[in-house]
């Protein structure tokens, strides 16, 4: 990972649905003194469209050749994404273009700095029991690059959560997709509901206070579909879901307004009150 400034790669899902969560990686980096470049000219990597099958490979290559060039013009040797699909899409493009730029996920940076974060915490997750869900596009596509835990059992978020003071719980469907399914979220959503239900049901069995996710798409799916599933099946979930950058920013002292707590479909207010004491 470069010691120079990182090229901060913004997510289109966060930008559209949780714009304040997008700010959280900046909040964390600012508090830790990690240098980054936030480029207004960076476009979407097209990853959501690409994995929906509605965006051609060749166009994806050219769009990201442009993004790589913007990063290099800004003097950055690496890109840090807030999204697991951006992470995988940029890595795939980098390999096909033979580009030397390095690609990291925001959680890699937070994990690397977890001891420094622990020293600056304004709140702790002491007494909070949580489950983690790692993005499939982080753990399963470039599986040889999973350095913490194993591709079938990544531990990156678990180690981050433990260093923040939480108790991390295992659950049976840990490796299952969140249910977002790309083209499924955009169209009929049957896949989203069935898979999210299976995932949330497995999580609920271990009674977590929080679901910690890795990716904007997983945040959206596990957050948004809880109320819909409750209406359709009568089963109540009401488990708060938070993105890793959002939780870290909160613990470093960011306010609920700063992290955009109000954008969540499944309320996170009570959990925040509990954490803030």
């Amino acid at each position, binding site marked *: 990972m470069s010691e120079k400034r990182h090229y901060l790669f913004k997510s289109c899902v966060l930008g559209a649905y949780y714009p304040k969560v997008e700010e959280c990686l900046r909040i964390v980096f600012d508090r830790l003194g990690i240098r980054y470049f936030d480029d207004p000219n960076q476009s979407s990597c097209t990853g959501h469209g690409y994995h929906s*099958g509605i965006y051609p490979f060749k166009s994806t290559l050219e769009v990201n050749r442009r993004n790589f060039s913007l990063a290099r013009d800004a003097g950055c040797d690496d890109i840090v994404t807030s999204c697991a699909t951006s992470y995988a899409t940029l890595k795939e493009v980098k390999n096909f273009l033979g580009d030397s730029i390095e690609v990291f996920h925001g959680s890699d940076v937070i994990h690397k700095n977890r001891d420094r974060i622990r020293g600056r915490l304004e709140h702790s997750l002491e007494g909070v029991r949580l489950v983690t869900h790692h993005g499939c596009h982080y*753990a399963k596509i470039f599986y040889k690059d999973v350095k913490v835990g194993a591709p079938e059992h990544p531990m990156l978020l678990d180690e981050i959560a433990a260093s923040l003071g939480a108790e991390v719980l295992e659950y049976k469907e840990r490796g299952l997709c969140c249910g977002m399914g790309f083209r499924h979220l955009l169209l009929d959503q049957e896949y989203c509901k*069935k898979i999210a239900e299976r995932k949330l049901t497995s999580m609920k069995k271990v009674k977590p206070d929080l679901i910690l996710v890795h990716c904007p798409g997983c945040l959206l799916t596990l957050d948004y579909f809880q109320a819909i599933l409750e209406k359709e099946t009568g089963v109540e979930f009401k488990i708060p879901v938070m993105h890793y950058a959002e939780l870290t920013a909160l613990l470093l002292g960011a306010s609920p307004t700063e992290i955009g707590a109000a954008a969540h479909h499944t309320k996170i207010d009570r959990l925040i009150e509990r954490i803030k004491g």
Partner: protein
Amino acid sequence: MAIGQESLSEVFEDPRIEEIGLRRCLQCGRCTGSCPATYVFSEFSPRTIVLEILEGRMDDLLKGDLIWACGQCYTCHLRCPRGNSPATVILVLRELALIHGYATDKVKEIAERCGRSMWERGVNFYEEGARELPVEAVADLQEALKKGEYDSFLKRIGADLS
């Protein structure tokens, strides 16, 4: 040439296929056994999709709904003992289905909706007040998109960006 045969050679010409073990598939079914989409849509099987390609039956695949059932979680890609990647193969098939006009109207509709958002604002999704690219950057992005033949792709699927 029978319908689909041209597409069959296009599958093997795609640079993504060179990177994976499509021809090494031994039909063990580990992909289908691991697949969340098979759990939801019992008629969907990544193993069968790979078999159809290896046996040269492209027609039904491109015209049907099955290639659109995959949720792109890549569990098949992770677990395949032969380095094949059914999830990647499916992306190649989806692209061909759209280019050759076989995709359903619903799929064309989302391709057009997301395409418009990307072409005009540089993001896959846009909600009122959300981040979008500055005007000068959009012009620059459109040059990159043209280089990637995105404008001709949109034209082929009948997307009207005017």
